[in-house]
């Protein structure tokens, strides 16, 4: 009984069991249910129906999430890059104070903010009209897939930027100084020296953001609940309106496959770089 390994496992077991019972089991349950008909036979009919009804939304989900992830990455590199290479201490301090705000704001609240901000008569259009940049007739509502992208980027960029800026701050400054002495511009230093060295942090942050966006239900419902929308909305609709677990779980399996594909790209890249993911 004095064996420390045994004691250690005993201490970890309750937490592991909780994850197993309340996450892994339902996850496997959803996969099994996706491949089972109402009569309990193995079938692919659920996937056929999911594709037939929601192929547009499946494509939209991919477009929305991939676009948002890429925009988050670009903006995070820009923010992190300026925080690392910026020469004006005051501007760096202001940016550092500014960019973090959406980080801890809940997705439901972000969705409510954007639902009013990017609407046809929202503060964004009103400000542009007041400044004389837009004519009232030119204003459009962004409450469709673009609004979902805007909300995701607004909410998720600070998270990616926080991790990327942290990684950039811990870089060895000597390579940056050497490049600067050789006359390289700041943009070139960022693209050729800084970003390659923080790429693994960047990719991890982007994959976590990708999964988060695939999981969020409130933002797509509140910004654009009508078709074309995201698969999360369709899953909730199949359950709440029809109790149709088969189709909902088939869509769920497709969402696992999408994140699985992203994770696989990451792992393969890790192996190519010498087995260190």
């Amino acid at each position, binding site marked *: 009984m004095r064996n420390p*390994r045994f*004691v*250690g*496992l005993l*201490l*970890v077991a*309750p*937490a*592991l069991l*909780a*994850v197993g019972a*309340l*996450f*892994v*089991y*339902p*996850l496997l*349950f*959803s996969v099994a*249910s996706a491949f089972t008909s109402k009569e309990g036979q193995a079938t692919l009919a659920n996937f056929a129906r999911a594709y037939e009804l929601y192929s547009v939304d499946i494509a939209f989900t991919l477009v929305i999430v991939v676009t948002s992830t890429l925009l988050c990455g670009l903006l995070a590199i820009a923010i992190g890059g300026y925080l690392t290479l910026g020469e004006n201490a005051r501007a760096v301090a*202001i*940016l550092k104070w*500014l*960019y973090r*705000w959406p*980080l*801890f*704001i*809940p*997705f*439901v*609240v972000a969705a*409510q*903010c954007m639902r*009013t*901000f990017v609407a046809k*008569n*929202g*503060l964004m259009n009103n*400000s542009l009209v007041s400044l004389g940049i837009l004519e*009232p007739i030119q204003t459009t509502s962004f409450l469709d897939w673009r609004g979902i992208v805007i909300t995701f980027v*607004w909410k998720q960029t600070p998270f990616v930027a926080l991790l990327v800026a942290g990684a950039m701050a811990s870089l060895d400054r000597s390579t940056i100084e050497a490049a600067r002495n050789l006359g390289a511009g700041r943009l070139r230093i960022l693209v050729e020296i800084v970003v390659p060295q923080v790429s693994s942090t960047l990719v991890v942050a982007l994959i976590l953001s990708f*999964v988060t966006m*695939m*999981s969020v*239900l*409130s933002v797509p*419902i*509140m910004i654009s609940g009508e078709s074309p929308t995201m698969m*999360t909305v369709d*899953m*909730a609709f199949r*359950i709440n309106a029809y109790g149709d677990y088969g189709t*909902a*779980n088939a*869509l*769920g399996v497709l*969402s696992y496959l999408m*994140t699985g594909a992203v*994770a696989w790209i990451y792992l393969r890249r890790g192996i190519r770089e010498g087995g260190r993911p």
Partner: protein
Amino acid sequence: MTALAWLPRAIVLGLIAFAIFGPLANLALWAAAEQWYFPHKLPVVYGLKFWHQVFKPSSDALASLGTSVVIALLTVAVSLALAVPAGYALARLSLPLRGLIMLAFLLPQAFPSVAVYINVARIFYTLGLNGTIAGVVLVHAVHGLVFAVWIAAAAFAAVDRDLELAARNIGAGALRTFLTVTLPLAAPGIVASAIFVFLESLDEFTGTFFVGVPDVTTLPLLMFTASVAGNYQIAAITALILLVPSVGFMMFVERFLKADVLAKVGA
């Protein structure tokens, strides 16, 4: 000349500030508006009528705030009960497959969760846990467990081993050493993880949406219902209530989560 050199910077920083605070300003305007309709660019009548409605003793909003806080406190209790022993074991005891165990806690954040919650709700329905506080607490606790376990493990790992050895040398037992030396030293990190779990639970929407229906209404669910029903003032005021702890945490997180603990998270 220096003023002119600031111009491009000021424009870019101004645009960023507008992009970040614009949506929040729109929310604040809605919270203070009594009447606001097209084509007015700003509220027509300002007032606190809807604040009285939200904060009157019999309101749904106060009841759901209470539900949210009770659920979040219970979630913290459940997570810490699971995470403190697990974190200690991961930090101090030699475990087989330690890396895999650490990763297992990340699973709930590594898969899109909507389909999982649908099936949790289905399983809970057969167990009579659907629509109960207990069911919602369990779902929140597992979702937040990765922060609780990883931060607890980092906090224990940052405790100086020599202090524990000194306590053991003067005759304290393993449990007494843990309770009087290790746990107090790791406490700031554990408090940080508790705040993290509390906020995750307070803000959680998707799990509650599926598992809590129809009897458990938390504040995010009430906000969602108000917003979808077009009641923007109530939605904005409840959203502001949800913002207070989140922004407060952002201000003070560095006070609790010291750099020596932060550096060990996930390691």
